[in-house]
């Protein structure tokens, strides 16, 4: 099987976010960058399929400033992916421009059976690029997948939907699937894997070289910290007093009931 995995480099959740003085974005230099956690499930699933279907090839693609984002491709290759492609692009491209660039790159690479992504990137939490890529390539997608079974020519997936319900969906390939927690447990890269990934030559493309029409999309401006919350009110006393006081505050002060 030919599998593409689209992954993104994002700031680690633990990292402190510094906003640029002109409010145009965050200070990328002070951030610790990691593979988007949901993308790790996508990488792991691709590598698992490859292990069960010998002859499969897993290609990871990412988009961003090439010097920095190469790291996530190497992480994926260390986990077992075969090839890596970087689309060199400025820091913040909006979802539709990103999807168009990814779709164009995949199309250029030729035939494929499956595209995997994470169900959302934890930086802009857009959950958009996957379904957009699928639309542009005219293939079906299924998002927020916690179980995947590959059968002849089709993919059987379980997806979480509202109210705790689960849908069992069958898709004829080629298809796009976005992964969520529960799909698998991403492995740690092995030492030989890390050595191999270090030496791997990554394919580099330039966003402008893809000759895409200019996309009118969304732009983020006026980055700012969320408004400060007032200090926590600690409610003291014995349990009965605390409970009475809490309910009173919720009703009369916070008007939350």
């Amino acid at each position: 099987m030919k599998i593409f995995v689209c992954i993104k480099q994002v700031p680690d959740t633990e990292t402190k976010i510094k906003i640029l003085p002109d409010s145009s974005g965050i200070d990328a230099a002070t951030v610790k960058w990691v593979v988007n956690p949901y993308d790790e499930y996508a990488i792991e699933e691709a590598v698992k399929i490859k292990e069960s279907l010998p002859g499969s090839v897993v290609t990871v693609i990412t988009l961003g400033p090439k010097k920095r984002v190469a790291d996530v491709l190497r992480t994926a290759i260390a986990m077992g992916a075969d090839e890596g492609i970087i689309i060199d692009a400025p820091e913040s491209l909006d979802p539709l421009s990103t999807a168009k660039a990814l779709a164009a790159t995949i199309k250029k690479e030729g035939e494929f059976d499956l595209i995997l992504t994470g169900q959302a990137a934890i930086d802009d939490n857009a959950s958009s690029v996957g379904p957009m890529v699928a639309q542009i390539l005219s293939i079906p997608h299924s998002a927020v997948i916690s179980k995947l079974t590959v059968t002849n020519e089709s993919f059987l997936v379980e997806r979480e939907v509202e109210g705790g319900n689960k849908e069992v969906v069958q898709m004829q390939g080629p298809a796009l699937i976005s992964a969520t927690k529960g799909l698998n447990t991403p492995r740690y890269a092995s030492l030989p894997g890390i050595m191999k990934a270090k030496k791997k030559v990554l394919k580099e493309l330039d966003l402008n070289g893809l000759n895409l029409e200019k996309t009118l999309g969304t732009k983020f401006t006026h980055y700012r910290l969320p408004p400060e919350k007032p200090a926590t009110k600690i409610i003291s006393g014995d349990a009965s007093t605390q409970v009475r006081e809490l309910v009173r505050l919720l009703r009369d002060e916070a008007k939350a009931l």
Partner: protein
Amino acid sequence: MSKVLIFTEHQNGTLKRSALELLSFANKESLQISAILVGSHSHSVISELGSWGVTQIYQLNDTSFDQYNPELFDAAFFEVAQQATPNLILASSSSLGKDLFPRVSARLNFACASDCTHLEFNNGQIKATKPLYSGKCLADVQFETTPVVLMRANQLPVMEKPNKNSSPQITSIPAPSLDLKTVVKNIVKGTSQRLDLTEANIIVAGGRGVKGPENFKLLNDLADVLGATVGASRAVVDAGWVPHEMQVGQTGKTVAPTLYIAVGISGAIQHLAGMSGSKVIVAINSDPNAPIMQKATYGVVGDLFEILPKLTEEFKQVLAH
């Protein structure tokens, strides 16, 4: 006048709160409102939409629309957008909304922003606000072409129903004839009768401090009284006490209820990532130094096993009046 197309989600013939929020916004801004109404059992919603000032309804009432299918809905919603020629599309950032609208927007070449928490008109331009980096900062979203704004639930105020009786015109959108590659084989119903976490106005969430799956009964009892939905930290999901759909946080659901009661949850940054947008946060924890205590509006230091039953009783008393 600006034309807005709203995807009005409903459940068993009742408009969801998220739909009422969007309708309220459109009324407040005096927009010309069209609505997309989905499902073969959606007739009862029509007059309701009329009283919210909707003048045109695109109804997807073929039975094939009773089950979500991205390909089918993509084609039908595309058709609606072609007919409606809106200046703005509004929908909820629900699991359906986030699955469908990015796909349709890519086909329409519209500018889609999901997970927005604020919306306003500024000199005739729509401006949305969106939390980034797990809520560590906010940014304004500008749209370079027709905006498709997916709003988180519980963010916009719901106004009193304007009772406009606009007797909307109804256009029925037939099921597109497509060679569908996607088939929904089966639906495994969850056990919960409660609202989804992402829509809940009140959430009671439990963490490792709850000490075992059986003790979630204490949370369920409280949730019953409050009409709340029960959530959980990842620690207890990973321990297998509760299913993943209940997880709040970076690798779970992002929620923003009016009231979030965190019970025996320490407040790890990955948990806060999913709930720090809640309006009022109550922390019940035996450790006064737990990080959640810094984030909470109200902190109750104590033993949850002592506090929860009392709290349930107190709410019962107070809410009965």
